[in-house]
């Protein structure tokens, strides 16, 4: 194994030598290497251990299909778990270690359990570790330690991710011969084209041809150059299309920085970008992956795919072994043999299962070509050293091998068992791949609109046909796009590689690995079928075939073929397992994109927010809004510098200030809907439970809204501006939902109602001045409204000028105190707030948050929808029958539901007040209630609970079965902490039952 002298078309840059670290030791390689080619060039055989048996594994492939060479890349905030050595572009100072090996790559415990391996067959754990069941957690603990590859990184991500939305006429997946040809044809018509390719350089498998075909090289250079110069073409390299969703939404991960050394990464740029591509047409030129031949110990290091060996040779000038044995069941191995002779002067032994291929040229060159032979077994300790080969015969249905075997010495074995077209993307939207007997492969059905496949995914094997197929595909879709197109191209003939039917030796099937990563052997599939796991999905799930990070890219088709043979069915009858995204694993951060941290979900702020921040408010999340929760005052200490009040202290202070003097709160978050039209009253009467026919302009009214199930969904105050113009308020959290709800009813059920709805939530900023001295504050700011209690009574609103700003002032109250809500356009919101603070200084005006608001309203028994109701409370249950009018000319939403047999039951849970016997005991909100101390049967729960500063005692609201008829009864609250607290059922209005405070200071 060595690096060859410079090759004409190699992709490494020998002028740049990079140092890298593998398993703690230092090595060198060239720019352009992958970690895999660098490891091979440095003679490293064993790169991983298998999942179940801890077997030594080497590099099997050269691309994303690699199942063995999983590594942990870098550390700290740059750590990448389970990276495949074959897709890591080498950069200077790269640091990698094997992702497997317990405790180390050199010594693996699982391998040490070798005598027990024969018992560790598929599904053995279902049959064992059963008794006693209680001990399973202990077994599980140890089994878990044995599983998994890399550790999860221990630090948060040092890099970031983003998304980009792309809109193109044509997306071409794959930058090989077919993809480039398709892209060029499409682009020449003027269509916008996006080319997506997963490698660092375009070319795909075509690159392996450059060494032997100057024509290929030339076609590639000129096509690439042409594409790069076209303004309507965008090329995404290092980009993997990992999912294709309906309506051609193609998801692509672009690795923008993973190839750059850590020191040189640009922290302003995302590490990876998810492109969300909407393409009018998609061309799938995704290519194919080779699959290996099966034989015992086919997992030994040094056994690899023929195409991989060819790629390492031609692109990286790495010779994987001096004494190669090439084995295959199709024509492709001969190309590798020729390259080995030409590039490295190495003469391999070539084993072809078939007979009849004209290999005279190779034989003449002195190569040992044996047709009708294959490998039955490999052997070696750290690496393959010998293979046993035998003559094989095909009877038209099955293969058989002669008993006589022969042994060949070797240091590398490259095999080709045919090709698996990459049908994945086509299948993501439910298409089933079609099996071709001629190709011995599943081909894409491409039966969904606006897509087409081209190139080797269609089974083409020579590059010229791929070029032709690409052009043909582009031509087809351009017709659909109605773009002017170049003269018609013809669909190329399929040139068959003459892949022989599937063969799996019958001996030592417990050493023949179908899925390398998960250690699924041919014998496991036999066992699964013996135990009646006969559906391919059952086989997969029972054996774990295809469950690995490679998702069975190499092994699945072999497993399917073996299952078909064992079940005596055809391969298409057995079918494939389901192809689902992701095509290759995608970083979780890249899926999330920029929408993490504070951008995870919009934070909504009121126009007054900056004032709250300046006053040191703590905030509560309500829906998406950030609302002041309470305003802790700084406390001076004798020795410490400073601290702030806790929630309890601040809320006590805020509550008393409102009750005794005046407070101010930001009510801007309430939803506001402007409703206009001749039928507004009728509309309101239909959506609210109460009546709206007689509400005069200048007045406001509280309303309760139900769904058709008769349960409360929202409440709020609506003001009448004129007979045809109202403004509704909704709860903060319900605003968007209620707006949609109203629009939906209007547009679908009541299109004849003449009503226009406009959301004005953001337009208005609302400052509420609350407390006995509220009038004295507002009178300092507004002279064109008469605030006398008689002239401006409760539940009225007035238009006026507050602190020089036109405003709507509403006299409504959520606290039982005199209260004015000043509504001004958002642009003046903060100004008004500050003016109110200034005007209220002499009364020690106190800003308060949602917590104090909750206490004040609970003292008055006002509900909060969503806290005191939970979607299962009717207006009657909420003791709000007064807000239900059953005599309206048209039924309101939910009206019919209120008379169902269950809804009219008198023992439903009803909203009541609770007074704990111990007046200092505050019930935890949510606590369940029972009838008697020892009872376990729940009769309701605490919905709201506070220590009321003004009453000097604890109060609560609760729903209790038949609670409204049980006033004065003692029941018990059972807390999570194990306490049983006696409470008395009471009216839910605790404070100022005579409503004497509503008018404030007279």
């Amino acid at each position, binding site marked *: 194994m060595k690096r060859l002298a410079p090759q004409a078309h190699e992709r490494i840059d020998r002028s740049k030598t990079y140092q890298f670290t593998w398993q703690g030791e230092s090595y060198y390689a060239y720019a352009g290497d992958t970690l895999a080619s660098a490891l091979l060039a440095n003679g490293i055989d064993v790169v991983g251990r298998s999942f179940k048996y801890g077997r030594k594994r080497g590099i099997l492939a050269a691309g994303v299909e690699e199942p063995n060479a999983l590594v942990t890349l870098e550390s700290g905030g740059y750590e990448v778990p389970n990276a495949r050595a074959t897709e890591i572009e080498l950069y200077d100072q790269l640091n990698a270690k094997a992702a497997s090996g317990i405790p180390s790559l050199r010594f693996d415990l699982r391998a040490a359990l070798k005598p027990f391996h024969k018992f560790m067959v598929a599904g053995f754990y279902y049959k064992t570790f059963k008794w006693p069941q209680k001990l399973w957690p202990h077994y599980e603990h140890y089994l878990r330690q044995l599983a998994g590859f890399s550790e999860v990184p221990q630090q948060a991500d040092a890099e970031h991710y983003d998304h980009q939305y792309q809109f193109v006429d044509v997306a071409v997946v794959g930058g090989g011969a077919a993809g480039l040809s398709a892209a060029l044809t499409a682009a020449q018509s003027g269509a916008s084209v996006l080319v997506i390719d997963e490698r660092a350089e375009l070319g795909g498998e075509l690159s392996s041809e450059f060494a032997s075909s100057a024509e290929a090289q030339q076609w590639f250079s000129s096509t690439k150059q042409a594409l790069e110069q076209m303004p309507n073409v965008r090329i995404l390299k290092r980009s993997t299309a990992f999912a294709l969703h309906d309506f051609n939404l193609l998801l692509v991960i672009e690795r923008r920085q993973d190839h750059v050394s850590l020191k040189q990464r640009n922290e302003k740029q995302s590490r990876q970008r998810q492109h969300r591509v909407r393409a009018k047409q998609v061309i799938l030129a995704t290519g194919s992956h080779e699959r290996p031949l099966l034989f015992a110990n086919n997992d030994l290091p040094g056994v690899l795919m023929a195409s991989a060996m060819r790629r390492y040779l031609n692109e990286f000038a790495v010779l994987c072994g001096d004494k190669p044995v090439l084995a295959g069941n199709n024509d492709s191995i001969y190309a590798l043999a020729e390259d080995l002779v030409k590039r490295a002067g190495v003469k391999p032994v070539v084993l072809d299962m078939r007979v009849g291929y004209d290999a005279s040229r190779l034989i003449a060159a002195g190569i040992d070509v044996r047709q009708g032979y294959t490998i039955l077994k490999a052997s070696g300790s750290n690496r393959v050293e010998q293979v046993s080969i035998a003559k094989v015969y095909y009877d038209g249905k099955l293969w058989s091998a002669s008993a006589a075997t022969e042994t060949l010495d070797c240091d590398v074995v490259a095999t080709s068992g045919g090709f698996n077209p990459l049908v994945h993307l086509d299948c993501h939207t439910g298409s089933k791949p079609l099996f071709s007997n001629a190709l011995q492969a599943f081909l894409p059905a491409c039966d969904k609109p606006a897509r087409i496949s081209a190139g080797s995914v269609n089974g083409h094997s020579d590059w010229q046909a791929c070029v032709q197929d690409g052009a043909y595909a582009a031509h087809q879709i351009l017709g659909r796009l109605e773009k002017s197109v170049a003269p018609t191209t013809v669909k190329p003939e399929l040139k068959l590689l003459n892949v022989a039917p599937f063969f799996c030796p019958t001996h030592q099937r417990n050493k023949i690995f179908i899925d390398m990563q998960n250690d699924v052997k041919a014998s496991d599939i036999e066992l699964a079928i013996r135990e009646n796991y006969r559906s391919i999905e059952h086989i997969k799930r029972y054996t774990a075939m295809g469950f690995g990070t490679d998702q069975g890219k190499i092994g699945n088709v072999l497993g399917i073929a073996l299952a078909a043979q064992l079940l005596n069915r055809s391969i298409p009858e057995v079918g494939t397992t389901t192809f689902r995204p992701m095509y290759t694993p995608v970083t979780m951060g890249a899926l999330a994109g920029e929408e993490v941290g504070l951008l995870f979900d919009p934070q909504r702020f009121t126009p007054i927010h900056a004032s709250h921040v300046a006053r040191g408010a703590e905030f509560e999340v309500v829906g998406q809004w950030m609302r002041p929760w309470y305003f802790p005052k700084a406390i001076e200490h004798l020795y410490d510098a400073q601290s702030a009040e806790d929630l309890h202290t601040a809320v006590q202070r805020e509550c008393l200030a409102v009750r005794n003097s005046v407070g101010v709160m930001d009510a801007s978050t309430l939803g506001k809907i402007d409703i206009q039209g001749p039928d507004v009253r009728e509309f309101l009467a239909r959506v609210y439970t109460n009546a709206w026919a007689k509400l005069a302009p200048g007045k406001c009214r509280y309303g309760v809204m139900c769904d058709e199930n008769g349960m409360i969904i929202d409440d709020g105050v609506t003001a009448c501006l004129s007979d045809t113009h109202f403004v509704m308020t909704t709860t903060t959290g319900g605003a968007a939902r209620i707006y949609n709800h109203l629009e939906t009813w209007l547009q679908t059920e009541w299109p004849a109602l003449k009503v226009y709805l406009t959301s004005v939530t953001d337009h208005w900023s609302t400052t509420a001045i609350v407390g006995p001295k509220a009038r004295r504050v507002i009178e300092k*700011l507004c002279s064109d409204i008469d605030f006398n209690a008689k002239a401006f009574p409760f539940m009225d609103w007035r238009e006026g000028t507050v602190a020089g700003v036109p405003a709507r002032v509403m006299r409504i109250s959520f606290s039982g105190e005199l209260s004015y809500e000043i509504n001004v356009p958002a642009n003046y919101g903060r100004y008004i707030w500050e003016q109110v603070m200034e005007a209220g200084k002499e009364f020690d005006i106190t800003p308060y948050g949602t917590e104090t608001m909750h206490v004040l309203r609970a003292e008055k028994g006002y509900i909060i929808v969503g806290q005191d109701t939970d979607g299962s409370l009717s207006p009657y249950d909420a003791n709000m029958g007064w807000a239900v009018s059953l005599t309206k000319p048209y039924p309101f939403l939910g009206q019919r539901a209120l008379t169902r047999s269950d809804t009219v039951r008198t023992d439903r849970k009803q909203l009541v007040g609770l007074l704990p016997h111990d007046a200092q005991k505050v019930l935890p909100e949510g606590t369940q209630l029972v009838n008697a101390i020892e009872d376990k049967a729940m009769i309701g729960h605490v919905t709201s609970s506070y220590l009321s500063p003004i009453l000097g005692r604890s109060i609560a609201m609760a729903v209790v079965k038949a609670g409204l008829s049980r006033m004065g009864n003692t029941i018990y609250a059972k807390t999570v902490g194990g306490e049983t607290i006696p409470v008395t059922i009471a009216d839910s209005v605790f404070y100022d039952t005579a409503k004497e405070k509503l008018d404030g200071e007279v």
Partner: protein
Amino acid sequence: MAKFEPQFATALEQQDFNRLNSAAFKVQELRDYGYVVLRVDANTEGAAHALAKLDISVPEPLTMTGSLDSHLVKWIGPSEYGITLPLAQKDAFIKAAKEALQGVFAAVVDNSGGYSFLHISGTQRYEVLSKLALYDLRGQLPLGKVVSTIAAKSGVIVYRVEEESLRLMVRWSFAQHFWNALVKASEEYR
């Protein structure tokens, strides 16, 4: 009564606009626009007459009529138009509109405070916005077009009245979030 000097503020007043002020990507918040929602079925006789009186010709779906210095009428939905106009003319316009539409089934709603009005320019404007917006602003928003869509999980109205820039309206309460998203998305171009 004290003499008051009302202070007018915009949603993004607190932000440092120097952060988004390069040739590659530049964002300005416009202070001087008002926004009036007009709901009316222009096909009714009364409405047609009133609209003519107001010098409003109703735009086709996804388009605009009028101009920024008097009134720019945006199609928002069927029977729904968003009118951007100089703030100084807003109150007079609303008054005139309400008068003209007296007796017609229509709504005139001042929503000026509801939005932050952004002017977005710079050579990389589409690169930045395509990270946030679900809509093909580069390819599908020619001069004279308006779309309501989503960007950075916020509802936005985007329209184009000039060759080299876009205008965007985002609701006041979402403005700071949207700003943060713009800052993050444009980081690599600054």
